[in-house]
C-alpha cells in the first residue's frame, strides 16, 4: 500500500476537506462520449461503508423503498445498521455524471473510451447514526466547486489594473 505522492503534499486541501488531485483514475488518454438521451436522472446514494461488489443489486426493492423521512432527515437501514441520510444537491453550474467504459482495449497504448452513462443533479449522502449536517466533509467538497471557479476564472483587466496586459513589442 503505497502513498499517493500528489495528495500527500497538497496538505492544505486535506486539512480543509477539499477534494485532492487524482494521480491515477485512468492511466491514459480517454475520450469522453455522451450517450444519447437520458430518460431520467439516476438515483444515486453514497453509503458510509465499503461494499465489495460491482454490479447489479436490487437497490430499489431493498433499500430505497425502506427509506423514510423523519424530522431530522432521511432514515434507512443497510445490513441491520440504521443510516441517516440527506439529499445533497450538485452545485449550480455543475452536473453529476457516471462515466462508464464498455469495452476496454486489449493493449495498453490504445486510447480508451468512456461514455456518460447516467446523469444526476442530486444524490443522497448517508451517515451512520449521526444525522448528516452542513458540517460533513462532503459539504466542503462541494463548496470547492464554486470556490475553484473563483480561483481559476481568468484574470480580467479589471482585476489587474496595475499591470497592463498589452503586448510588448520593444524592449
Amino acid at each position, binding site marked *: 500500500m503505497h502513498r499517493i505522492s500528489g495528495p500527500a503534499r497538497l496538505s492544505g486541501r486535506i486539512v480543509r476537506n477539499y477534494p485532492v488531485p487524482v494521480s491515477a483514475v485512468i492511466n491514459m488518454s480517454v475520450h469522453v462520449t455522451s450517450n444519447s438521451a437520458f430518460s431520467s436522472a439516476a438515483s444515486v446514494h453514497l453509503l458510509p461503508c*465499503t461494499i465489495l461488489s460491482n454490479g447489479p443489486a436490487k437497490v430499489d426493492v431493498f433499500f430505497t423503498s425502506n427509506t423514510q423521512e423523519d424530522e431530522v432527515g432521511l432514515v434507512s437501514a443497510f445490513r441491520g445498521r440504521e443510516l441517516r441520510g440527506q439529499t445533497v444537491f450538485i452545485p449550480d453550474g455543475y452536473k453529476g455524471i457516471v462515466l462508464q467504459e464498455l469495452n476496454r482495449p486489449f493493449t495498453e497504448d490504445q486510447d480508451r473510451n468512456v461514455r456518460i452513462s447516467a446523469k444526476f443533479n442530486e444524490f443522497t449522502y448517508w451517515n451512520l447514526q449521526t444525522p448528516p449536517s452542513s458540517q460533513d466533509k462532503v459539504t466542503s467538497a462541494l463548496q470547492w466547486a464554486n470556490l475553484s471557479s473563483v480561483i481559476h476564472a481568468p484574470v480580467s483587466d479589471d482585476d489587474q489594473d496595475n499591470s497592463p496586459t498589452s503586448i510588448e513589442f520593444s524592449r
Partner: protein
Amino acid sequence: MAEEEREPDDSPRLSSSSHSKNKEQSRWVMIVPEKIADQQLEDSSPDSQPSIIKLKHPKTESAAQFLICPKDKSIQEILSFQDSKGSWFIDNTVQEDGRLLMATNIDPLFLILPYLQSENNTKKHMFMELDQIVKDSSYPQCNRLVEILDHQTTCQICDSKGNEDFKVYRYSEEKTLAWLKSKVERTADYLSSSDISVSSGQCSSYVRSSKPSEVPREDCLRYAAGLISDYLHPSLSKKMFSNLGIKEETTKGKKVSENGNKTEEETTNGKRRPDENGHKAEEEPPLKKVRKSSSEPDEDYSRSFSMPQVKAVPTSKLTPGQKRLAKADKTGMKSLSSFFKKK
C-alpha cells in the same frame, strides 16, 4: 434483503463477473461543469471531444489527471473526494469505489508556469514560441495546453514580442506576481462574502455555521493565498507570500505545533508580521522556517488521510466494524428473526 444481507467476504455473488477488482474498474462517479455534461458529443469529431489526459501538476511535479475540452477551450483538474469508507448505489447497481470525482476548472496558466520558469532559467531569458516552451517528453499531452491558451491570457504572465503570425514569449516574474495578487484578492473577496470559515483551516468543520460576521481581511488573504499556493511550485509560492506581505498559515502552524513542533513557535515569537518591520531582506529566513515547519506536520495529516484512499483491502477494515457492532447498543436494530415474521 436476501442479497444485501450477505457477508462482504462472499459478496462476489453480487458482482458482475469480471469487474470486482479495483484495477478493472469500469465506472466512475464524477461532477463536471454542466456544459460538459450537456454537450452534444455525437456529431463532434474525436479531436474536439473532451478527453482525460495526464499532465504534470505544477506544485507536486508528479502526474495528475485533467479533463480537457478543446471545444470551449477549457481545462478541468480531476480531483477526488473520499471519506474513509464508502460505496455508491447507482440506480439498481452497486459500485465499490466510493470516490466522488470532481472536474473543476483550472486556469491553464498554472499548468504552463513551470515550463515558462524552467525555460527562462535554462535559455537565459530568450523569447521563444509557446509550443517550444511547453514541451515535455514525460507528459507529451502538455502541447494540448497551447491550443486552449490565447495570446492575451498568456501575456498576463509573460512578456511577448512579435506580430500576428509569429509570437514569442518570455516568463515575467513581475507580471506573474501581479497576476497572482489579483487572483488572491479576488478569492479573498469571495471568501469574505461566503460562509466558508477561514480563521483556521483545521477548524472549518466546527465553526462554519457560527462564523463571526467580521473576518480580518488578512485571514481571508492568507487562506486564499494558501489555496492558490496549491498550484504553485514552492519557490514561487514563497515569492507570492512575500509579495503579498502575509505570512503563510500561521494559525494552522500554531495548532500543529502542539504535536511537538517547536520550529513554528520560534518563528511566531521571533518574527512579527512583515508589515511591522518592513524589511524585505529579513523576511526570507523566517518564511523559509514557516514553510518547513508547516510542511512537516502536514505530512502526518495526509498520511493518515491518504492511506485509506489507496488501499483496497476492506476485509481488515470491516472486522473492527463488526466488533463494534457486537459491542454496540442494539436497541434500534431489528433482530434477524423479525425478517422472517412478516412474509
